[in-house]
């Protein structure tokens, strides 16, 4: 291969520069377009993957919710159990027999001058939060005693027994017979 080059060096340089400009002029838009397409593709892929992850996360959320409900129900169940136990305890503590035993003791203390005409035992089965704060039920006693002193004594003795949180008169004192001192009254004992 035989060759001399008579082109002026500046011309060769200028053509090379021009060719470089032409080549880069073609390459740059291609590169930019490729980059934009890559970015666009990346963004769409990321969005798709994010949506997939969110879908999977929402699927995993349901068992969590169920677990939460289960936890709540378990807590509720435990509370109910506890309440039932308390009720059972209360019932065992405030058994009507205990009240009867108390009245029998009073009657002996008053030498038979105390008569219990009726006993009414009322228990709150599902006590509300408000009623739970006041009482679990009440016992209504209708009694007949001689004189007001015995009336107040009997009321004092029942209160001191400690079985009830509140003991109060349920009715006014009334004479059973105008010729005697026997008085009839009603006590409402809250427990």
């Amino acid at each position, binding site marked *: 291969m*035989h060759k*001399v*080059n*008579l*082109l002026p060096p500046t*011309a*060769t340089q200028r*053509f090379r520069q021009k*060719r470089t400009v032409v080549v880069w002029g073609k390459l740059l838009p291609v590169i930019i377009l490729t980059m934009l397409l890559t970015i666009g593709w990346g963004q769409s892929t990321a969005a798709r993957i994010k949506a997939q992850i969110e879908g999977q996360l929402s699927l995993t959320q349901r068992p969590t919710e169920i677990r939460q409900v289960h936890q709540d129900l378990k807590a509720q169940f435990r509370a109910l159990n506890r309440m039932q136990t308390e009720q059972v305890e209360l019932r065992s503590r405030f058994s009507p027999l205990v009240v009867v035993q108390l009245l029998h003791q009073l009657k002996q203390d008053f030498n038979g001058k105390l008569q219990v005409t009726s006993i009414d035992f009322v228990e709150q089965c599902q006590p509300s939060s408000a009623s739970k704060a006041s009482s679990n039920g009440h016992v209504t006693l209708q009694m007949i005693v001689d004189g007001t002193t015995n009336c107040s004594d009997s009321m004092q003795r029942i209160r001191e027994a400690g079985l009830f949180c509140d003991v109060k008169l349920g009715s006014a004192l009334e004479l059973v017979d105008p010729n005697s001192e026997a008085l009839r009254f009603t006590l409402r004992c809250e427990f």
Partner: protein
Amino acid sequence: MSKLEPQASGASVVSKLTINPKSKSRGPCRWWRKQSSSLGIDFGQINTKIVIAERSSTQDVVYQAVTIPTSTSTLVEDHNTGVPPEGTPLGERRVRNSTGVASIAPTTNWSKRALRELASRINQVVGTRENIHAMDVSVMMSMSTCDYRTIYVPKNARVNTAGLQQTISAAIEDKRARCIAVVPGYDHQSKENQADEKQTKVRCFSLPEDLAWTVAQQLDEVGLSPSTMNGLPWCIANALEMVIPVEEKSLVHVGLDWSYGEPTLVSLVNGQIDYIRCLSNGSLRELTSRAADDFGMSPTEAGRWLAHCMQSTNVVVDSAVIETRDWVCEVCMRLAKEISTALEFIRWRNQGVKLQTIWVMGGAAHIEGLVEHLASQVSSAVKPWCLSSESSSLSSEYALAASLAWLGQHHA
């Protein structure tokens, strides 16, 4: 494969040739080299020869050639004589001698406008191709625009370009800046003798810088930025390399560019340029000058007239034909004499090496009968350069343009 557009810009001849260069392996074929194309443009004075070489995926090299006229009547700017006649060569001007007969004088002042038009026409011919910008473009200027000389410079010293410039300017009386290619002289016979000498021989091939710039610029403007502007002797050497069989590489081969400018002779030994000589007689200009001067023909017409006169089938009845043939004989004899002198010198330089063939290239070699006429007067074998395959061939006219395209294939 898209084809050249022969209709465009007066393109006259189109050839297509496929060569399989598998024997000349160029290493593995890479995918980006599958369709490497190169363009060779030989700016002649009358015609511009264009050859495109394309390497296909099968490694075949397809050569496509086309010729377009270098000049037209409207292109040449001549301030002395006004509008020149049709076919006046680009880079020449009509002058009148003392007897008032118009003749053509070569000049290196190629018109910028004419070159722009020429570049535009080249682009019309090859511009329809898809890969025009990817082509490796190599060009070669007519020898009439260049200067070749051997200059002695101080041995073992850097070549002083300014000094060479001054020497050449003084010799050719042209003060314009020149692009100079300096090549060391190849003188294998006298190496030992030269050892004691204080001077060494260099070959200087030069071209006016403004012309090189203009040609390159005009081609660049149509998208055909040239990568190489080769010198004619080096193109002849490449053209020889293309046709010399491998087994004959060690022998002496001579290439002769026989075209409109000065005939240039190059000898090649062992793949190296041994000798370059610009001959002073026998150019196509000289061959056609008689017809141009006597009959007032344009160079193109004179060329056609010469081809007509040299046809072997032509029955000689016309005195004008006889006169032209006699003139051709005379010019050929002068050329043969110069060639013989050069061959003697080449034989003396390469004693013991056989001088194999003289390959004739250029437009004159394409004219029927001319090479045969010259061969009869030279002692060595003379053949017209021809690159051929089974089905088609590329004629001698395209030798230099083909060598430029071939060079481009080696760049690609």
